[in-house]
Structure formats: C-alpha cells, structure tokens
C-alpha cells in the first residue's frame, strides 16, 4: 500500500466529520425561532446564556447524528410548549395576580411539562432501538428550551416543568427498554 493510501482513509474521515459539522450548523439554525421567542419574552443575560448552551447542545447532537440528531429537533418542538404556555396564561390575566394566580401559573408549567414529555415519549415510540438515547437527548433539549418560560414561577416552576417532562416520558422509556430485551 502506498503512503498516500495510508493517509487517505484519515483524510476521508476528516472530510466526513467536517461535512457533518457543516450540515449540522445549517440545521441548527432551527434554534433561531426559539431564540427569537426566548429573547422577546425574557431579554437579558440569563436568556443569552441559556441560548448559548442550547445552541451548542443542538449542534453537537445534530453532528453526532442518528437518534441524537433526531432527538434535537423533537426536543426543540416539545420544549416550545413550556416556553410559551406560562406566558400565554399570564397574558390572559390568569397569572401573577395575587397568590391564587401564581398557583395557576404553576399548573401551566407542570401541564406544559407533561405535554412536552408526552410529545417526546410518543416520538420515541417510533424510534427503532436507541429509545433511551433518544429520550434522554430530547428531554434534555426540551428542558433547556422550556426552562426559561417557567422562570416566571422561579425554581418551583422549573422543577414543576421538569417533573412533568419526566413523568410523561419515563414510562415510555421503561417500556422501550423492556421491549428491547
């Protein structure tokens, strides 16, 4: 084998990885609508920091590909529900007016978390193999996306949303893992 033949597989592999990164960067632009929504609702350094983490996570997942890549898109869609829901409730005059409204807002966070979890779980059901990978990745992206919406309620709102996400998605993940055995 000639020396050029030895280095050629390495060059080809590098070309492949760089090509994947380029393609992932283009597809990661899907974060832009979510970013615009986040910055419109919660302008400030907190939103920017979250956006940075979200963008890097989505880029990494799309570059890795497979179940990870598919989970990124699902996670963004599912996370948009808890991102928007508390704001919609509040704009309807049901939130943050006296103590009772705060409870409704909390319910909105938990409910949105449940919906997001259900979306992730339903989509994971269509995955062949790799249920766990898909669930974990999509839930992580959904959590990152939705967390900013529930900061209205402070840490309790965030925890409520994450709890809803887990409650709705874990049973499906367990069922997938059992079926895989």
């Amino acid at each position, binding site marked *: 084998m000639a020396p050029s033949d030895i280095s050629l597989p390495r060059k080809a*592999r590098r070309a*492949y990885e760089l*090509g994947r990164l380029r393609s992932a960067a283009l597809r990661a632009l899907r974060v832009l609508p979510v970013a615009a929504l986040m910055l419109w609702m919660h302008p400030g350094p907190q939103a920017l920091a979250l956006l940075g983490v979200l963008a890097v996570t989505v880029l990494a997942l799309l570059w890795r590909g497979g179940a990870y890549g598919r989970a990124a898109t699902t996670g963004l869609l599912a996370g948009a529900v808890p991102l928007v829901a508390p704001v919609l409730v509040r704009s309807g005059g049901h939130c943050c007016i006296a103590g009772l409204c705060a409870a409704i807002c909390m319910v909105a966070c938990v409910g949105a978390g449940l919906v997001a979890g259900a979306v992730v779980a339903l989509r994971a059901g269509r995955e062949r193999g790799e249920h766990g990978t898909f669930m974990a990745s999509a839930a992580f992206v959904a959590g990152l996306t939705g967390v900013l919406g529930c900061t209205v309620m402070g840490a309790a709102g965030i925890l409520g949303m994450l709890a809803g996400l887990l409650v709705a998605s874990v049973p499906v993940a367990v069922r997938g893992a059992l079926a895989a055995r």
Partner: protein
Amino acid sequence: MPFARQTADSELEQSRCAAQRRAADGDLDETLKRADREQIDRWMTALADGDRNAFAPLYAALWPRLRAFAARALPSSADAEDAAQSALLRVFSRAAEFDGERDACAWVLGIVAWECRTLRKRAARRREIGDASHLDGAAAPGADPEAAALARDLEAAARAAFGDLRPADQDTLRRAIAGERPPDGGPTFRKRLERAIARLRGAWRSTYGTE
C-alpha cells in the same frame, strides 16, 4: 495546433467520453453488481444518518471502484489517481447531505465523473498555454525538458541517417555546413551537394518513413 494532432486529440476525447458513458449507463452493472449497489446504498444511508460504523466498509467498497472509473476516463494514471482521491473526499464530505431515497452509486459516479471532467479541462488548458508559449518563442531553448529530449532524439536520428551516406556525400555536406565551398562556387560542388541532400532525404525516409 497541427491538424493530425487535433484529429488525434478529438478521437481520444471521443473514446474517453464513450468509456465514461458506458460506465455511467449500460456498463454500470459491470462495475457495480446489483448486490454491491444495494449494500453501498445501505452504508451510504447509514453514514448520512451518522452511523460511523458504515465508514470503513463504505470506504473499502468505494475506493477501488472510483479508481477504476477514473482510470477508464483519464489517460494518465497520475490524473486518474488525483481525480479518484478528490472524488472520494468530496463524497465523504457531502455524505451527511445524502438523501437516502436516491441511488448512492449513481450519486458517487456523478461526483467522480465531474472530477474527471474538471481534470481533463484543466489538462487541456495547460496544453493550450504550453502551445501558445511555444509559438511565441517565450520559452528559452532547452528550458522545457520535453523539448530538449525531443531535440536530442532528433539529432541522434539525423546523425544515424548521416552515417548511412557514402563518405564522399558526408564530406560534401560537412563542407557545406562549415561554409567551406570552393572559391569559384563551382557548379560541380552545387550538383554534388544536391545529390548528397537527396541521398540524405532518402536515407531518412527509408529509416523513419517520413520526410
């Protein structure tokens, strides 16, 4: 460009195009068997989805085929190697964008055919530039190694033809080249010189078949 060379280039180009068409259309099955094509389809789809395990077998399947295709499409083995390498890197660079609904082999062969075409065009441009500089006399004599080698071959051939002449003819030609003509510039010497040149031409023609 001389007409004979133009015709030869045109024939060469036609044969290359025909080889390429055969490889891309009818003879594709000869290059890639159906089972191989399906396997390559599966590997390419898996790689596009991010399955790195498909890289090694796909590389092993594609590289010899790309080389064979390029070798058929290009006359120079160095150019063929370059085209195959460029095509291979381009295929892997764009693997993430590959649409699983498409035929992977047709996609890959399209890329290598494009690379071959690009290299041929580049070579043709180089040749045209080389011809132009030769006509302009821009290149210094002996600067081009190919031209120097050609000149050496020509000189050796002329010496061989010269050696076939009779000593009297050789002497006449030597004197004419050195400018040692008789003081009276006699017609006898001119006649001898004409005969020596005619014999030299005859010797050249009989040895090399050309004027």
